[in-house]
């Protein structure tokens, strides 16, 4: 029963990792851009929520009403104003520009908020749990996080496969030059992809900030988890990314149960193992 519990907690944690990963995956899918600042943007969203909560006193989940549109707008501006200029045949510009961005965001947060650990207080939600049996209980919060991940991924799937915008995303991903021939303004489409990615990242950031402590330095680790979830799941498949997140979460939780120092390490090792035995991930869809 103890192990069931450990695996269940890990799987729920995986929902959060899938949320980290969905935006990264979307940006890569549409424009082959790997955003190294993704983790720091998640943390930035957490700080935005912190400011909203401090200014208005609303519940952290309610702060999403302000943070999501804010990050959406930031994403649009970031892509149109900066990242679009890095796209081309060379791999260095997008990589190094987003790497620079990561350092800039981290240090700006450090300057603005100090290195102190913060947390968003969610009141009763933090401790409430649902008993599933004698020794099995799941917290409401982890359950909500996982549900949010599943719902958001389902919505993204609907967007990608059932709407004109999603069609434009996929067509651009296949062949941006030809998509332009039929009226797809790719700069705008790229910007919308980044805007959406950051909107999802902001949900991830707020949920992260309710679940655990955060400080300006934790972005890169979130990037790595997101990246691992994407690669484990296989490029281009959002449900695969959710599965990748779950595998990562379970590996961490089982590793941590074996030895408290081994949780994160076990996650990384699971990722490297998948990389060695199935380099294209478990559920690949995209070629590239």
């Amino acid at each position, binding site marked *: 029963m103890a192990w069931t519990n450990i695996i269940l907690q890990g799987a729920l944690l995986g929902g959060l990792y899938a949320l980290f990963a969905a935006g990264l995956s979307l940006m890569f899918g549409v424009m082959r851009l790997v955003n190294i600042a993704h983790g720091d943007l998640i943390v930035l969203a957490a700080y935005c929520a912190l400011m909203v909560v401090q200014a208005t006193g609303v519940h952290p989940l309610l702060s999403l009403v302000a943070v999501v549109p804010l990050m959406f707008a930031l994403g649009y501006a970031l892509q149109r104003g900066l990242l679009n200029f890095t796209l081309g045949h060379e791999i260095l510009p997008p990589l190094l520009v987003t790497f620079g961005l990561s350092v800039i965001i981290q240090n700006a947060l450090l*300057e603005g908020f100090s290195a102190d650990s913060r947390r968003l207080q969610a009141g009763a939600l933090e401790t409430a749990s649902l008993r599933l049996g004698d020794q099995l209980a799941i917290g409401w919060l982890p359950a909500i996080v996982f549900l949010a991940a599943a719902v958001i991924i389902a919505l993204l799937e609907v967007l990608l496969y059932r709407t004109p915008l999603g069609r434009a995303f996929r067509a651009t991903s296949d062949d941006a030059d030809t998509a332009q021939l039929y009226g797809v303004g790719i700069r705008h489409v790229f910007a919308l992809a980044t805007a959406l990615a950051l909107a999802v990242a902001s949900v991830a950031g707020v949920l992260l900030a309710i679940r655990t402590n955060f400080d300006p330095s934790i972005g890169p680790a979130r990037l790595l988890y997101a990246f691992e979830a994407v690669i484990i799941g296989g490029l281009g498949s959002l449900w695969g990314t959710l599965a990748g997140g779950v595998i990562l979460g379970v590996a961490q939780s089982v590793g941590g149960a074996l030895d408290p120092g081994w949780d994160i390490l076990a996650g990384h090792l699971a990722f490297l193992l998948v990389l060695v035995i199935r380099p294209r991930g478990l559920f690949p869809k995209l070629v590239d």
Partner: protein
Amino acid sequence: MAAAWRIERSTAASRAALFAVALAFAALLALPARGDSGDLRLAVEICYSLALAQAWNLLAGYTGLVSVGQQAYVGLGGYAFFALTVLAGMPPLPSLALAGLVAAALALPTAFVVFRLHGAYFAIGTWVVAEVFRLLLAQMRPLGGGTGMSLPVAVVRDLAQSRGARDLITYYLGLGLGLGTVLLVFFWLRSRQGLALTAIRDSETAAASVGIDNRRTKFAVYAIAAGIAGLTGALAFLEKLRISPDAAFSVGDWTANVIFIVVIGGIGSIEGPILGTIVFFALRALLADYGAWYLITLGALAVAVMLLAPQGLWGVVARPLGLQFFPVQRRLRPLNSPQTAPEAASPGRGD
């Protein structure tokens, strides 16, 4: 007419550069006579930063391997040095050399895994690997676990009895590492493998079609860069006298700064990282009192350079003047009028 061309590498500028380098070298050799201990420490840091920058440039600028995980090998080198001296009781100098080898050797199995990823994914993959090493070393009790350990006085004494002598030894070691790396990269780029490297950078498929073994060249470069990082780690933590997983595997100290140096100075040339190192340390001295603003400025500068002048400051300065201090490219020039501005020929064409 066709015979009236001559292929050469050295130019007036490169001969002048050789002279300048010799002069600078003499000045550096003489530095300990004038500078105090703090100066020497700074000089060592400049030297190993230059070494890391050259190694990263070899990876990213010439081989297309954009790693953000070089801190893995700095950390491994540092820890190998501590393990060899403290646990195995080896004398410091051989341990230093061995630490570099250990890092290079560990790079090979690592390459086997991370080379499955390409482009930006390779970059993040190397970062994951560095994290794995950091977390593993944090689990090693004999090496101090998560809190790290100090270098015992006995080991320090083993290097040299007096503080002054130790400063001197680390200084010359640093100088050797910095200059040695520059020369290594220089001669490597002029060799057959060097040509292969440029070919890989310019097009992997083209290089493959003319029979250059991409994979072996990539493995070799990756291991060499790791070896240089390992030596850097050993030297840096010998000087700091203390090592911990967080310091040894810091992405900021050992990779971010190095990337900024190379990008700002100019990627894909030997001169770029040298210029970048100078700019980096000048900026650091200038902005020392501004805390996080210093790194924000540095990051913004690197972003601006990448977008506006991807060849870096060296490209901005040297391109219009046709300057090249380290002539790795062959130039084609007419024999009868050697003064005319040389046309840079594509490197593959020489020999």
